[in-house]
């Protein structure tokens, strides 16, 4: 099972993501913004990072850029949790180095399917 970092400023969304992943046997660390996620990422290692785009302090895009600049996270899959209405955000995320995205709203099954897709 994988070690996953879940980053979202919404407590309910983060809770849902973490709960679902833990239920599937993954080890999940949580962070409420990009800055905190970077701190946690630095002190640990993860197989996958799931990040919301719109967050205070540091948004998801900037976080991806910073993560990719770290040696340990050059090739780690990073998925953006984003909404349909922001195609340009997807591209911005891609440009920053995101692996892909999961479109909100998603349900626990979709989340698990996508995670499985990335982790194999």
């Amino acid at each position, binding site marked *: 099972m994988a070690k996953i970092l879940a980053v979202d*400023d*919404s*407590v*309910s*969304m983060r*809770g*849902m993501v973490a*709960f*679902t992943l833990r*239920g599937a046997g993954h080890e999940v660390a949580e962070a409420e913004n990009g800055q905190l996620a970077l701190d946690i990422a630095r002190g640990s290692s993860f197989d996958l990072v799931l990040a*919301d785009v*719109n*967050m*205070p302090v540091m948004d998801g895009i900037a976080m991806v850029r910073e993560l*990719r600049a770290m040696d340990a996270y*050059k*090739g*780690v*899959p*990073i998925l953006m949790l984003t*909404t*349909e*209405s*922001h195609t340009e955000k997807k*591209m911005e995320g*891609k*440009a920053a*180095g*995101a*692996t*892909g*995205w999961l*479109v*909100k*709203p*998603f*349900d*626990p*099954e*979709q989340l698990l*399917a996508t995670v499985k*897709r*990335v982790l*194999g």
Partner: protein
Amino acid sequence: MSAVDLTQFHKTFFEESREGLDAMEAALLALDSGSTDHELVHTIFRAAHSIKGGAATFGFSDVAAFTHVAESLLEEVRSERRAVEAELIDLMLRSVDCLRAMLARSSSGQPVADADSEALRGELMRLASGEAAVATVVAPKAAPANGWDIRFVALPHLLQTGNDPLRLFRELQQLGRLEVRRAFVVDRAPARLADLDPSQCHLGWELRLHGAVARGDVDAVFDWLDGDCELAVEAMAEETPAAAAEPAPAGVPAATPAPAADPRPARETAVASSEGGSIRVGIDKVDALINMMGELVITQSMLSDIGENFQLSQLERLREGLLQLERTTRELQESVMRIRMLPIGSVFNRFPRLVRDLERKLGKQVKLELHGEHTELDKTVLEKIGDPLVHLVRNAIDHGLEMPAQRKAAGKAETGTLKLNAYHEGGNIVVQISDDGAGLNHAAIVAKAQQRGLIAAGQELSDAEVAELIFQPGFSTAAQATDLSGRGVGMDVVRRNVRDLGGSVGVRSESGKGSVFTIALPLTLAIIDGLVTAVGHERYIVPLTSIVESLRLRPEAVRRIAGGGEVFHFRDEYLPIMRLHRAFGCADAITDIERGIVVVIEDDNRRVGLLVDELLGQQQAVIKSLEAHYRRVQGVSGATILSDGSVALIVDVGGVVRLGRRSKAA
């Protein structure tokens, strides 16, 4: 049906959405008052965005649909395609109100969208320059072919996005039989091995996917790789009959990604259970608690160590240990109490909006100043102080502050100032609402009071007495019964509410300069510092904050008045004596006034003397509700357990003073 029960996140979602709306409102008001801070726009957008995402995820589709439209507008603002105009702010503020109502209905399981919300959504859509309500992109339904030829060339940075060609092949394999027809190194690859950067990818593949696979499914596999590869997908050129006859691989998963318009699972109408109420506690408070707990454990082990083989020589150590226990217990108690304390800012925050709305409605100009937002109050007090404050703020703007022209004529700034201030004072939290308006209109108040029969005609009243009149039941100055203040809620209700919280409210006013309403509230409802008194065999606790003085009276200082009441002279006034033993029916109590002791207590500037047998000392009392364990008793606000294990009743000062004054009047 989902294996994960999403209803468990609903409460959190509602809580954070309410907070988000508060933040949104505050930011909108800041923009409204002319701020150009772009971060405000981000805050507003983020709040709407989170609510939309959460609502959609947790199945509140009406809320999601509404927020979606608002968010689209906000996105235009954020990307500077739309200016922040008064109309937009108005609309957004109304949207905040509407969303609050929608969320409230959601949390109680009622139908969410109503005529109002739909009308408002229509307005938002109209403003959003003809943007479609939901921009759902329906994936083109290409006719399934017998198979697909895929030419896939990775761009050098592909691996650096965390994507892996192997993963893609695995996914394709799940759709149908995958044949790798050719793998090649692209021309741009460095010629020398030494120049090869392992993080760069220089490979390409020609693949053939056999089977009746929908084009959309193939595209979905490469969905994330837009810009990371060169991709060409074509219907299979020629298929050998043998291959064509090949049955589609068993177990082709219906891996169609759910389109956005996918109907969400029916909204779970779990009625939010009666809110037990939760509290967010700063981590520092929890840490302090854990710290104290640690010390308590150490002290406990030290004491049990002494106790196990006690020798008289250890008496000093025992005493030390007990002292430490006392100190730690007190600190622990304080730490626990602090958990219930929340900053008053959460109540103050609703006023910018209220003030703005009142300004528009009344045509007045008001500058609102907030001070001491970080002052902490007991959660229960905080929840109940909102309404009285709203009433006082309304009154101040409606009756206190004058119209701009009037102010100008009086030589004042056209914009009136309304100040809310919270601070600690002694054992109390004081909240002041002050305005620089016209002050109380004495003539109007007196006239009104006479008309209502509260005072006799021609009665001379001091300023303080006139001010007191507005707190009288049945008094309302709403001569110009506006729809703001004249809602049948008078100042007497404000006072009653504040009193119910163990607090007091008063007013100072100066004609032409303004009024100051002062609310004093107890720090916490659960603990009081009290004076333990004995009445017969009973113990009564009098809250320290209400004690003016304790004194022994000589017989000649007591006067009997008609009706059986007793009064005594105290600092230029006659105070009624209230015999506690009589009021509470205690046997074996001292009945000679000169042998007992009189405790002068005060509530709302009104005093009475309580006759008790003796004073036993000061003690902190943890208030236990008498109502919950027994029943409501007049003159008693609660009970507590004394250090010897006996029960003492806590005197309800307000109630006792009212009782005492009544008996004097009788």
